[in-house]
C-alpha cells in the first residue's frame, strides 16, 4: 500500500497558541481517511496545513515535515499555487463563485491555461459527472451557481476541484451544512472518488466516519490520540480517551 502523505512531528501555531502538537500520521493512497474529534481539537487546522491554506492567515507558522510524494510541503520554497492544484479542498459551507455553473467548473482550468476551448465542454461534463451532478444541471449549465440547492452547490464545489485533476482531496466537514439526503449523496460520491483520488475528510459525525472511511484519526486538544483502521478504532479503541469520545462521553 502506498503512502501518499506522510506527516512527521508537525507542530502548528496561531501566534503563541499551539494548535497542533507533534502530529505523526500516514495517509494512504486511494483510501478515505476520516479525522474526528470535538470542536477546536485541531482537525480542521491539520488539513489546512496539507495545502498550506494557513498561509492566508496572518501570524501562523508550522514546523515538522509533511511529505507529499517526496516533496516537503512545509518548505518555504514550495510553489503553493502548484501545490493547491494537486491537493484540492472542499469547505464546510458550499462556496461556489458568483458565476454560472459551467464557469465554476472551468474557473481553475481557464486560469491554468494550456487547455483549448474545444475541451471545455468535455471538462465540464466529466467533472460534473464525477461529482454526480451532471444529470441535475445539464440543461442549465449557464445559470448562476446560486440557483442550486445547498447539496448541489457542494457537489459543484467538488466538481470544480476535480476539474484541476488533483491527487488528494481535503474535505473540511463537507456535509455539516447539508440535509440528510444531500449528505448521503455526497457519502456515496466519496466511495466513487476514492478509486481515483486520496481523500482526507474532517467530520464532526462519528457515524459518518464509521460509514465512509478506511482509516480514522482521533484528535483531542491538538494531539492525534489514536490513528488506525476505522474498524479497529470504532470496535476496539486502544486509548481510553478515544473510547470515551466514540461512546459519546464528550464532544
Amino acid at each position: 500500500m502506498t503512502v501518499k502523505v506522510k506527516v512527521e512531528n508537525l507542530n502548528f501555531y496561531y501566534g503563541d497558541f499551539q494548535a497542533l502538537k507533534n502530529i505523526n500520521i500516514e495517509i494512504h493512497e486511494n483510501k478515505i481517511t476520516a479525522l474526528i474529534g470535538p470542536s477546536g481539537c485541531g482537525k480542521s487546522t491539520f488539513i489546512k496545513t496539507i495545502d498550506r491554506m494557513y498561509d492566508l492567515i496572518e501570524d501562523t507558522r508550522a514546523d515538522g515535515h509533511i511529505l507529499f510524494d517526496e516533496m516537503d510541503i512545509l518548505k518555504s520554497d514550495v510553489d503553493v499555487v502548484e501545490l493547491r492544484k494537486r491537493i484540492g479542498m472542499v469547505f464546510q459551507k458550499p462556496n461556489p463563485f458568483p458565476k454560472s455553473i459551467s464557469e465554476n467548473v472551468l474557473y481553475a482550468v481557464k486560469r491554468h491555461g494550456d487547455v483549448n476551448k474545444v475541451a471545455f465542454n468535455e471538462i465540464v461534463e466529466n467533472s460534473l459527472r464525477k461529482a454526480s451532478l451532471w444529470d441535475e444541471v445539464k440543461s442549465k449549465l449557464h445559470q448562476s451557481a446560486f440557483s442550486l440547492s445547498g447539496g448541489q452547490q457542494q457537489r459543484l464545489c467538488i466538481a470544480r476541484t476535480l476539474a484541476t485533476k488533483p491527487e488528494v482531496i481535503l474535505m473540511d466537514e463537507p456535509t455539516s451544512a447539508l440535509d440528510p439526503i444531500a449528505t448521503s449523496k455526497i457519502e456515496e460520491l466519496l466511495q466513487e472518488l476514492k478509486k481515483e483520488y486520496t481523500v482526507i475528510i474532517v467530520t464532526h459525525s462519528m457515524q459518518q466516519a464509521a460509514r465512509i472511511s478506511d482509516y480514522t484519526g482521533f484528535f483531542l486538544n491538538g494531539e492525534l490520540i489514536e490513528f488506525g483502521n476505522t474498524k479497529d478504532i470504532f470496535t476496539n479503541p486502544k486509548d481510553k480517551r478515544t473510547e470515551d469520545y466514540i461512546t459519546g462521553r464528550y464532544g
Partner: protein
Amino acid sequence: MTKKKYLFQEKLIEVVLVLFASISILTTIGIVFSLLFETMIFFSEVSIFEFFTSIRWAPVFDPPSFGVLPLITGTLLIAILSSLVSLPLGLGTAIFLSEFASSKVRKVIKPIIELLAGIPSIVYGFFALTFITPLLRSFLPNTDIFNALSASIAVGIMTLPMVASLSEDAMMSVPNSIRQGAYALGSTKLEVAIHVIVPAAFSGIASSFVLAISRAIGETMIVAIAAGQTPSMSLNPLGSIQTMTGFMVNMALGDIQQGSIEFKTVFAVGSVLFVITLIMNLFAKYVIAKNREVY
C-alpha cells in the same frame, strides 16, 4: 411609565423624524421647481432648437448665441479625462488594499487616501494651475495656461479616493469563503482579485465609477480655476475650454442683472446639468440592481 404616555412619545418621535426626512424631499422639489421655472422663461425667449443645435456659446456677446453644446462637450471632456485617472488608479488602489495589503498596511494607507477626499476642491484648483499646468507645459510646450487636461488630472485625483474607498468596501464585503475557494484551486492573488473578487463586487465597483463620473461632471472650482473660460467644441485636452459648471460660476460672479436673459442662461444650463446627473444616477441604480449578488 403608563402605556398611554409611552405610545404618545413613540408617536411624537415618529412625527419629528418624518419632519426631518421631509426637509430633504422638500428641498429637492424646491430646487427642481426654481430651475424649471426660470428655464421655461428662458426658453420662451430663446429657441430650444438653437439651444441644443447651435455650436456657439456666447450669451453675453452682441449678437448673443445660445448653443449649449460647447459647454456639454467641455464637461464631457473633463468627465472622460478625469475618469482615465480616477477609475484605473482608484480600482487599482482598492484591489491592493483589499487583496494584497496586510491589515497593518491597510490601516495606515486607507485613512491617508480618505484624507485626499477631505481636501477642498479650490485647493485642487490652485494645485492644478500652479503645479500640474507648469509640469505639463514643461514637456508639452503647446499647452495653454488654462487647459482641460490639467483640470482633469486634478478632478481625477480628487475623485480617486471615492472610487478606491467604495470599491474597496465592495470587495471586502465579498465573503472570505469565496476567496478561500479560489485560493484552494491554486490561484495567485492577482487571479483571485481579477477573476473572482472584482466580478463578485462588480455592482459596488460600478456604482463607485458612476459616482466619481457624476462628481466630475458637477465639479466647479477646479474647472473654474484651471480649465479656462473658452466655450469650445474642440476636444483638444491641451486647450482652454469651459464646462457647464464653469460657465455658471462665472456668471454668478459677474455683474449680471437678475431677470436678464444672461441670468436665465444660468438656470437653463443648470437644468441640463441636473438632467445629465439624474440620468447618471438612474443608470447607476440600474447597473447595481442588475449585478447585485446576494450571499
